[in-house]
């Protein structure tokens, strides 16, 4: 065991997987001698050289498309998109192509590729370094989407993603990179795609969340506990496929569900979680299925007070918990 940050867990995992398997390569903007703009790949080029750690031209569609071609021809590329906000040019190669390679070829070809994407706000990123981009990926059959929130989950899910024989999108919340520390086993392990985890057991209410909001939610749950409300916190971890069983089991057991997310709510992960609960737990609930998210404005203002006003916070989550508990 070693205590490390999320970014250290990501880096260590890339080192380990590239040592483990020669066919793993990393490509993206500035991933070489710069070590990535967040230093996620710091040192990789020194160990693995320019042929396996490739500084690409500034062109995301080709980053995704080249990774896809290389994956189809026997490599296991990790493509880094520098910021989630710059993912849009790559959508055609990911949503349009990679997601359907196995299906569209009846299994003759597969695309074992991983796309790592730093996302999310609360980092003074303004409109173009703060976005959450999970919706479209989580909607698309053929893709898997993971969003680890802790160093432990970051290592286990990234290792799984790299070894999976299909495209996996790994969403890494920028704010957690250095903020969140935790114990990480030195030895090899993986975490299955599609499994949520109860990060805090509780009896009065189920709070379902992921990413940075997990940490704010855990803080809010502690504050609520001080007020006598025992909140169970479920970390989705995988956004496609969602762990509908875990969501439904916990919600039915506690009888109340609060979904917290950083992304704007309309047509989002929280919508789907609410829909699952509304369909599967209807007769077990004793309060409305509640969602907490930011306002429906472009995420998110650069100005610090406004950014804070945009982001859900432990305090706002506590408010929502308290209100739902009173129903």
């Amino acid at each position, binding site marked *: 065991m070693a205590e490390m940050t999320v970014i250290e867990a990501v880096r260590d995992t890339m080192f380990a997987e590239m040592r483990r398997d020669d066919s793993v*390569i990393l490509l993206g903007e500035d991933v070489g001698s710069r070590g990535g703009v967040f230093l996620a790949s710091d040192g990789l080029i020194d160990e693995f050289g320019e*042929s*396996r750690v490739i500084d*690409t*031209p500034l*062109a995301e*569609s*080709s980053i*995704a*498309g*080249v*990774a*896809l*071609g*290389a*994956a*189809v*021809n*026997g*490599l296991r*590329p990790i493509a880094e998109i520098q910021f989630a906000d710059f993912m849009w*040019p790559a959508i*055609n*190669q990911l949503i*349009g*192509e990679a997601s*359907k*390679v*196995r*299906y*569209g*070829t*009846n*299994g*003759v*070809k*597969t695309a074992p590729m991983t796309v790592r994407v730093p996302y999310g706000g609360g980092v003074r990123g303004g409109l173009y370094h703060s976005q959450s981009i999970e919706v479209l990926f989580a909607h698309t*059959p*053929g893709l*898997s989407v993971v969003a680890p929130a802790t160093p432990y989950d970051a290592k286990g899910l990234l290792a799984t993603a790299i070894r*999976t*024989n*299909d495209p996996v999108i790994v969403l890494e919340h920028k704010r957690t990179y250095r903020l969140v520390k935790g114990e990480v086993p030195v030895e090899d392990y993986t975490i299955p795609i599609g499994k949520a985890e109860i990060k805090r057991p509780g009896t009065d209410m189920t709070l379902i969340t992921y990413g940075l909001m997990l940490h704010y939610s855990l803080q809010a749950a502690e504050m609520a506990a001080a007020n006598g409300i025992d909140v169970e916190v479920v970390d989705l971890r995988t956004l*496609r*496929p*969602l762990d*509908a069983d875990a969501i439904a089991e916990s919600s039915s057991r506690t009888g109340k569900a609060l979904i917290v997310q950083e992304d704007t709510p309309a047509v989002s992960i929280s919508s789907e979680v609410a829909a699952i609960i509304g369909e599967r737990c209807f007769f077990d609930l004793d309060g409305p299925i509640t969602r907490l998210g930011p306002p429906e404005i472009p995420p998110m203002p650069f100005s610090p007070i406004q950014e804070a006003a945009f982001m859900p916070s432990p305090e706002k989550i506590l408010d929502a918990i308290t209100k739902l508990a009173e129903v």
Partner: protein
Amino acid sequence: MSATENKSLNSTLPESKPGSGQISGERLVELYRTMVLSRYLDQRVWLLNRQGKAAIAASAQGHEAAQVACIEATDPSRDHYLIYYRQFTAMVALGTEPEEMLRGFLAKEGEPMSAARQFPLHGAHPRVDLFNFSNVIATQLPQAAGVALADKLKGLDAVTVVYFGDGASSQGDTHEAMNFAGVHKLPVIFFCENNRYAISVSIEKQMGIESVASRAAGYGFPGVRVDGADVVAVHEVTKTAVERARAGDGPTLIEASVERLLPHTTDDDHTRYRSTEDIEQMSKRDPLLILAELLKRRDLITESQDEEIHDKAKKRVNVATDTVDAEAFPNVDTMFEHVVENTRGHA
């Protein structure tokens, strides 16, 4: 031995093939056979559409010479082919049987490329490394760079050939792919079949220049324009590009000038946007007639041998049609397979 048999996955280059850039008379006749077979099959598919049996078809008529000649210069046992929907003849040349082709158009069980999930000719070939993941124009070009990158890392001397149209040259992906391949000197051949139309959009509305090949200079590799109705010429420029790629010298952009003899697809009516003169003029550039004339001029075939080739092809197509027409559609249940590994569906 027919050209299609000759070109199955495990064949190496036929012995009769002379040195770089040249092509024997014997091989020219084989290529002609393939082109004739492709033409009849292509016509049949169009007919099946008119009969309401094939939902849609894009034709390679007019592109046949460029397609067979390009493939003749490569090695199907080790090279990769990223095609697009107009590669009908290329698929025949690479060993797809007429029955297999027809299963694509009629969406029948056993369709080899995608189990009839996709439009005809889309998916991946089970025997040759030929694929076409989607209908989305130009996505195959960055993918081709990736395929070639993997070969380069693995130290293989395979060549990746990627096909696209004049319209596709406008896509951002085309630029990004050529730029990437240029930086890494990848063993890719960018093969553009320029028929001067993207559906109805003529080349003047597509680009401010004459020749797609001229863009290669902006990526640091050679670009060459060739008459796509001239089998010998296409073979020669492709052979040079293949040698360049295998030697580690990087990509080549080949632009083959061809004619699209039919409307864009069975859904199109090109008289809406092509003038009568344009249609008449281009019809004279039928590569089948041009090659037939060459073969006869060079005494490589006689008139009656030509007729025999045609007869054989026609019969082959008839047999295949009867077979496939009688076949069933795929079972509903198979549509849940292969979404991701080891699952049926994936919610």
